[in-house]
């Protein structure tokens, strides 16, 4: 067994209340962009990968408009915090905590996410 498996063998998995949930192959994630995934309860999650390979997952729903689009926003770093800017009205969300950087009273759910060899 090699300790550096091919990225195609790695799966992106989310921690849900009742265990780990496989979302997609790691290779489906373009650095700096997100994808949306559907959870078993109908919720949607936006999963991102940054340029150094770190993964993040937050709720896909933009709380300001209701549309499920956060996975389609541009990502970046602000004061060392990774964020995604909503593609609709551009509010930024901290990718680790789900907190809105432009409105302290708003936050979206953040999920624990990992790449694991299955």
């Amino acid at each position, binding site marked *: 067994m090699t300790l550096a498996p091919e990225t195609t063998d790695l799966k992106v998995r989310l921690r849900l209340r009742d265990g780990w949930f496989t979302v997609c192959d790691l290779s489906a994630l373009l650095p700096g962009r997100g994808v949306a995934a559907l959870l078993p309860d109908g919720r949607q999650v936006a999963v991102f990968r940054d340029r150094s390979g770190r993964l993040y997952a937050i709720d896909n729903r933009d709380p300001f408009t209701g549309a*499920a689009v956060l996975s389609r926003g541009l990502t970046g770093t602000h004061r060392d915090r990774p964020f995604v800017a909503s593609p609709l009205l551009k509010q930024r969300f901290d990718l680790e905590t789900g907190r809105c950087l432009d409105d302290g009273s708003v936050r979206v759910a953040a999920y624990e996410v990992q790449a694991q060899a299955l």
Partner: protein
Amino acid sequence: MSTTALGGDRPRPTIVLVGHGMVGQRFLEALAERGLTATHRVVVLCEEPRPAYDRVQITSYFSGRTADELSLTDMEFIEGHGIELRTGDPAETVDREARTVTARSGLIVGYDVLVLATGSYPFVPPVPNKDAEGCFVYRTIEDLLAIEEYAKSRATTGAVVGGGLLGLEAAGALKGLGLRTHIVEFAPRLMPVQVDEGGGAALLRTIEEMGLAVHTGTGTQEIVTDASGAVTGMKLSDGSELATDMVVFSAGVRPRDQLARAAGLAVGERGGIAVDAQCRTVTDPDVFAIGECAQAVDGRVYGLVAPGYEQAETAAAAIAADETGHMTFTGADLSTKLKLLGVDVASFGDAHGTAEGCLDVVYSDSRAGLYKKLVIGRDGTLLGGILVGDAEAYGTLRALTGSVPPVAPESLVLPAGAGAATQLGPSALPDEAVICSCHNVTKGTIRGAVTEHSCTTVPEVKKCTKAGTGCGSCVKVLTQLVGDELEASGVEVDKGLCGCFGQTREELYEIVLALRITSYQDLLDRYGRKEARGGDGCETCKPAVASIVASLAPAIGADGYVLDGEQAALQDTNDHFLANLQKNGSYSVVPRIPGGEIAPEKLIVIGEIARDFGLYTKITGGQRIDMFGARVEQLPLIWARLVDAGFESGHAYGKSLRTVKSCVGRTWCRYGVQDSVRMAIDLELRYRGLRSPHKLKSAVSGCARECAEARSKDFGVIATANGWNLYVGGNGGATPRHADLLAQDLSDAELVRLIDRFLMFYIRTADRLERTSVWLERIPGGLDHVRDVVVHDSLGICDELESLMASHVSHYRDEWAETVDDPEKLARFVSFVNAPDTPDPVVGFVPERDQMKPDLPLLSIGMRPAETLEGSAQR
């Protein structure tokens, strides 16, 4: 409902604030600044469903500001200071004996100090049917929502009762909602409190020119309704009847002092909780009243936010009883400036000249709707004034009020260019001059923010001093002052693109071109600010760099395809999906229709595609057809059909060439002198796909009648008997600008060559998101400089500009066709990576007229378990 008396053993003393409006919020900030939130428990009873917001700017809701943007309340502030804020829970009674307040929820809170900041309510004259369906007031966000809904669904005409400051603002809003709008004012002129007869006449003229009907000197006698009880008109006191579908009452406000009256607190003769100079109620030393609900010690009730803020500070200081505790509030200035779009009206100080022996200096030009009056005291002191039609000088004049101006008063009101006119800038003001009267900030304080607190931008100064964060009318002077001060102190102003790059867009363009840098990460790691290197950049510089790389792609050896490699991660969502994102997460598709010319067969194809995919279609303002409501996974299928029929992307999404509109021109039109359609098509095909700092629009008219509106375009072409005139820097949109003539009577080839150069020079030197109109105004030398560069080649760069354009033209490929052919890219066009066949359940539609529109209630549910979920989500 539970009834609880809160409080523990040995509780901290409690301050209860009733009313969380503008003044209430300011009071909380003043408490926090004095450390009182640490030593006291603070409970806020807030009647409205949302915490404090900017009522002064509330009308901007109609121009797109959201309730969130209007908010004045930072929840981090509230939570951080442990303030217990109860929205939607108004105070119902005060028991001064027991020192408790009972809220609607049943909550009973004991207080040591009670502060009433309940504001005012709009006064509605007691006319018959005043509560009919279609009657509104104008004070809260909820009022505006109700007005908007009624105006959009049920009204074409509206009337505002009251021609004062707020009435005009409400009338402007109704007009903005598309209604034919009337203003009914009892007094003989508009804004009777602020302006005099002369000013009223100039104002009337301007307002009527905006298309509003004004009825002065007449009152409202009765609201007329139909059988169902909805408004159909109003009877006026002059006997006439006015047909209208809705009525907005804006006839002044009254203090909300009922709670106080019921608690036995003294109120003024005309209402308002009576307080002393420290804002304590005259009846009970433990109860304060501030803001519009209070009657100040000078016997007046102030209906403006600035005096309210001062009262908030005064009350907090009295409660703190520290060294700031000697503040008093004894009266305030009533300067105002109307924010209504298109009309400048300002009055300040002693506007009506009531002081003994004062003189008026008046300048009036009723044809131009101008009226300016200054009131000068015997000793030459500026006491006040009125400005109508041009309030440029307001900030400076208001700040000079109370002092002897450094120049002759006449020169302050004469229009620029008229003989002795002096442009008196803020540099002439003394340090004590109040620049921001909302927050009582002096010029000295603003300078101090720059020199002592090292603020280097206007937003920083605003944050530091609060100046400019009220009505906003001082921001212009503030900006000038900050600029002057920075320059004087030799601070280098950061002109960088964003937090990641210290360079301007133009500098980055030069770096990318000279060093042939094709990778954003490479650029960031080598040329980004130190703290940004190695990071992920931001949403500002990513698309800006992507655009530079795309504009220069062939010249620097990059692939021009925007979804290629790293480029894909940099694009705004619209560019990334090659379509325009709509409010519910669906997309619109706009195929290119060069010059607006389209053959019947192609029209049929568009109709068939829209029908087959269930899309909403609309003819756009750009002479083409937009199809709305496509889901991500439908986009490639739609493009495949369009590409098959010979269509390509119309780049409605990119910062790139949109359309070149045309008029029908010489071929058909009896006046046409050139073939404008052919030229429009040629130009559109030449510049299609060209990525630029902002979008580019063009048009070609076949003669001077200008049916294609070419002079409202970034580059517009108008036919002459001898060829073509080229105009540049035009703009429609929010700040329209007529294009300037760059060159005359050009041949086809000369025209194209000049446009090539012009566009490439713009792409090279403009800022990000700077349209040609703004760029042309900004760059040193303006139009003359641009003409020198692109017509006379004064910089010797025209060859380079032309060759850059030539390589763009020869490398153009259609992005849709390219994407449809690339299976790897197609994989991105799914709603869910783990359920590619499942559509996003939030994207739904409901019928409207003969088509459909987004199902918005679906969005507020946010998400619904999808029926198709079982089985399709892989585990």
